[in-house]
């Protein structure tokens, strides 16, 4: 895995210049070293995506047809919804994130992945722990703490897996060969340092030895919000910052905006937690401070949006050819919109209406799916061909995946946000009996199930394409054809997909 690159390989790569060739050779070696671990995490994540999708469809359907599978205690809404959330977050989102982290860190640090066996065992622990935990939730052993529902008997295994990965990422960073620290590396380093701290504090103060009363809710939402803001968001941003300039071949617009964006995110995002508790049983200052921090988030979000937009400007035509670029740009735009929606939701005036409604669910999916999941899909479209050294087999499946998920998620988050707002307005009017408030939400909940089916089709298409890719990788060798969209097959393609 750390064998020197042979001159034959170097020559065969037909470099533009020797430095470029050297880099390409290095990258080839790095990609090869990552193959097993990254594939393992990506595959695990995709399986959890399918499981999470099924659980999501069941939960969504039950909300407007409560008798569906109503006799099965293990499938009662309160459990199946929770299982969906944990499978989607700790299964799909986190495992894909780890795969992306490893590949990006190795590439950017110019260091091959060492001692893969450790990482691979972390993946196994993770999957085993999560499977036990999800089973536990369906059996009723949920801890009852939001975002931390996995039972006590499954979390130590998960924590061990995560600790291994965090340590490995830091070791890669420590032994980097590339002196310059690119912005993606700041975000990734931050994410792997922040998450263990968040997780261990939360487990200690919420599950192992719960704090007194309302303090639990304080710690709970400090943790839960920071999982989104300090773990998933940095990984998503790291991916966008890497793939956007990489695919179009232009530098990121402004280093200064990157610095401003990173440090204001680091400073303000982690104070946001209590915006989940507006109106709740807490002294006013705790809520106010989180509202202020939430509004401050406008700064990093706008800075990042400017950076991304001005990098892309003039190159939107390339979206026709590159699946990576499509998903990444969609994710980047969703990041801006969902973050601004989040800022608005935190303000007391808005929260009075929208709190406790489906608007929050829509916002959560705007951030975790339209931003994060789409960004991860884009990253996988770039990474998988490089670590398997094969091209994507089916253009149709890529298109199906993109259009189903892009249209599906827009149809999910926009109407449900609006439905949640209407629900909130009805709830504010004490003259409207509660059952009538529920009636207001029904059409939006039914439509949401339909959009869930569209998303599911997209997921299956992607999974099928990946399986086909793996058949090509480990099956009989065939002449690879570069997979670029829009039927372009030759060097006329203007992009380095």
């Amino acid at each position, binding site marked *: 895995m750390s064998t020197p690159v042979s001159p034959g390989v170097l020559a065969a790569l037909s470099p533009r210049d020797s430095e470029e060739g050297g880099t390409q050779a290095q990258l080839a070696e790095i990609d090869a070293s990552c193959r097993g671990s990254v594939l393992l995490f990506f595959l695990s994540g995709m399986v959890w995506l399918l499981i999470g999708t099924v659980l999501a469809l069941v939960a969504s359907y039950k909300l407007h047809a409560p008798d569906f599978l109503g006799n099965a205690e293990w499938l009662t809404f309160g459990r199946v919804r929770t299982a969906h959330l944990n499978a989607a977050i700790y299964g799909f989102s986190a495992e894909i994130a780890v795969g992306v982290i490893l590949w990006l860190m190795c590439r950017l640090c110019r260091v091959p992945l060492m001692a893969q066996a450790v990482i691979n065992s972390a993946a196994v622990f993770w999957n085993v722990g999560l499977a036990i935990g999800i089973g536990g939730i369906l059996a009723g052993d949920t801890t009852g703490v939001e975002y931390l529902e996995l039972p006590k008997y499954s979390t130590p295994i998960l924590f061990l897996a995560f600790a291994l990965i965090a340590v490995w990422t830091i070791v890669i960073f420590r032994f980097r060969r590339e002196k310059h620290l*690119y912005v993606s590396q700041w975000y990734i380093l931050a994410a792997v340092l922040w998450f263990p701290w968040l997780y261990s504090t939360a487990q200690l103060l919420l599950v192992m030895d719960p704090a007194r009363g309302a303090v639990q809710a304080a710690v709970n939402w400090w943790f839960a919000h920071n999982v989104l803001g300090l773990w998933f968001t940095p990984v998503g941003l790291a991916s966008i910052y890497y793939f956007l300039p990489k695919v179009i071949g232009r530098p990121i*617009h402004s280093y200064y905006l*990157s610095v*401003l964006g990173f440090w204001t995110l680091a400073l303000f995002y982690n104070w946001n937690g209590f915006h989940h508790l507006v109106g709740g049983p807490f002294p006013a200052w705790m809520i*106010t401070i989180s509202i202020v921090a939430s509004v401050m988030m406008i700064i990093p979000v*706008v800075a990042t949006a400017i950076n991304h937009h001005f990098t892309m400007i003039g190159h939107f035509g390339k979206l026709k050819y590159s699946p990576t670029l499509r998903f990444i740009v969609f994710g980047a735009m969703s990041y801006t919109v969902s973050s601004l929606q989040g800022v608005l939701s935190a303000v007391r005036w808005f929260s009075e209406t929208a709190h406790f409604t489906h608007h929050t669910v829509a916002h959560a999916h705007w951030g975790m799916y339209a931003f994060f999941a789409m960004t991860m899909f884009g990253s996988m479209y770039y990474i998988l061909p490089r670590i398997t*050294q094969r091209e994507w087999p089916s253009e149709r499946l890529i298109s199906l995946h993109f259009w189903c998920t892009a249209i599906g998620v827009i149809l999910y988050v926009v109407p449900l946000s609006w439905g949640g707002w209407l629900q909130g307005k009805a709830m504010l009017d004490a003259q409207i009996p509660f059952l009538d408030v529920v009636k207001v939400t029904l059409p939006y909940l039914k439509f949401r199930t339909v959009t869930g089916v569209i998303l599911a089709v997209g997921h299956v298409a992607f999974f099928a394409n990946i399986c086909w890719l793996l058949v090509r990788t*480990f099956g009989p*060798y065939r002449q690879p054809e570069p997979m670029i969209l829009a039927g372009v*097959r030759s060097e006329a393609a203007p992009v380095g997909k």
Partner: protein
Amino acid sequence: MPDAKKSTPPSAPLLNPDLGEQHDVGDLHAALQREQPEPKEGFEPMNLWLVVLTGGLLFWGGYYLANYSGRFEADEYSEIPRGQAVASAAVETPEQKTLRMGAQLYNNCAACHLADGTGNAALNIPPLAGSDWVLADGPNRIIRIVLNGMSGPVKVNGQVWQGNAMNPWRKTADNPSGLADEEIAAVLSYIRSAWGNKASFVTVDEVKAVSEATKDRSEPWTEVDLLAVPLKSGTAAPSLAGATNAPLDLASLKGHLQQLPPEELKKLLEAIQGK
């Protein structure tokens, strides 16, 4: 940019690099060869308006934090600064206030009698909207029902309701979350005025009088017991045990008569008519 596609002569065998077979390196690294250079940062200056926006937001943040944090006290739950006028409630008459409080308190009743006062036939819960008990002239019986609850069959608007019971709502040491006298007055006034009901408000004094008179009672009321109670104070329920000089409570008498089976009623009428 190197050729993205190379062709192997058709006669060459297909080779799998994963099995250690010789392979065409160029083909394998096709994706890599297509790649653009690793990303770099450009150095465009920060937009001035972004700096101004940042400054503005910091200023707003500081102001909001200073003024809406309840002085960072642990027991200040409202963010509204002291001395700042609370959004003044619209000026309302005492009647409007009673109805508003009553509507709020009615939520205690709505679980069974429903928000529109129609009750629940499946659970044998009678309606309040249009109910003859609710609309009766005086409130003495319905105050008793709320204080001590009710059980057994009851005829409402000619239909018999049985198979369920109503809990007591009197506020006592054992039931501190019960309704106080003022609350019972408010909620009954609301019930007598809502959903098309048109009957007089119930006063706090009326509730207090009944509450005092029944303070030692712990069992729920039955229909028979209640019908013996005069609807209004100062009137007497007709009693077969002996005549009184108090004015007759006609509604009470009517209630009694309605309970009689038709043959008995016919006999009574014949007796009155002297037949």
